[in-house]
């Protein structure tokens, strides 16, 4: 199996999910970090960087959710999940919703051309980062990255 063979990459039924998942995780965490820095330093440039990171993170959740569900349907034939797999599915969906909610809060403020972002977004962002990190940890555990394999 050649790692740069296009056919191998495209036809690896669930490998895409394991690869694509890193994009929303990284973008969202960096986006939240920029947002906290923007709040602290009162810098528009950091707020803009936060917005664009959160925007791309929200878009990146779509292929991740799709490939995750396809992996479940193809590789496990959609069988009833339990244990870590079920927890990963539920927390993955919750993470995606939270990422989109955080981006939506930022987007709405920009559309209304308001200067100040609502303060309630910060606890939501904090909870979202924790949920995303836990989901990623479970995914790493399932794939063997965080385990002995």
């Amino acid at each position, binding site marked *: 199996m050649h790692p740069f063979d296009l056919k191998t990459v495209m036809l690896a039924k669930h490998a895409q999910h394991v690869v694509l998942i890193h994009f929303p995780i990284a973008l969202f965490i960096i986006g939240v970090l920029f947002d906290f820095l923007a709040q602290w330093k009162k810098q528009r440039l950091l707020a803009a960087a936060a917005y664009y990171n959160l925007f791309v993170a929200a878009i990146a959740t779509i292929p991740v959710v799709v490939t995750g569900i396809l992996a479940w349907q193809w590789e496990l034939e959609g069988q009833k999940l339990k244990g*870590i797999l079920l927890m990963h599915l539920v927390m993955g969906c919750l993470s995606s919703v939270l990422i989109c909610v955080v981006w939506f809060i930022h987007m709405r403020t920009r559309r209304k051309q308001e200067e100040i972002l609502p303060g309630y977004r910060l606890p939501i962002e904090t909870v979202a980062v924790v949920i995303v990190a836990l989901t990623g940890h479970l995914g790493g555990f399932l794939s063997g990255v965080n385990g*002995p394999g």
Partner: protein
Amino acid sequence: MRRSVFIAGLVAALVLGIGVFGTRQKTSVASAQEKMSTMEVKIDNFSFGPVTLTVPVGTTVTWTNRDDIPHTVVSTDDSKTFKSKVLDTDEKFSFTFSKAGTYPYFCSIHPKMTGKVIVQ
């Protein structure tokens, strides 16, 4: 009279002895067959053990997940000769091999985990 009682007793003891011996032999043959017809593959630390298992036709192979992570056992041939559900820790999956051949398999959650059953 005494003699005939003695002979009858001897015959009875002989018959009883043959009976017990025969039963024991049957039991030992049965347990040997049982031993031969069931083999176990352990799933642990993201690997199947033994990786290659050679068994006679008619053997039932049981995979037991001793790992903390869920795994599956899926044959790689097109007709998917055997395919387990997701096995959580300590769950088992069994399949009886009725035809000779080589049966490669893998874990569909962790495709790098592979194994093989050779049925002779």
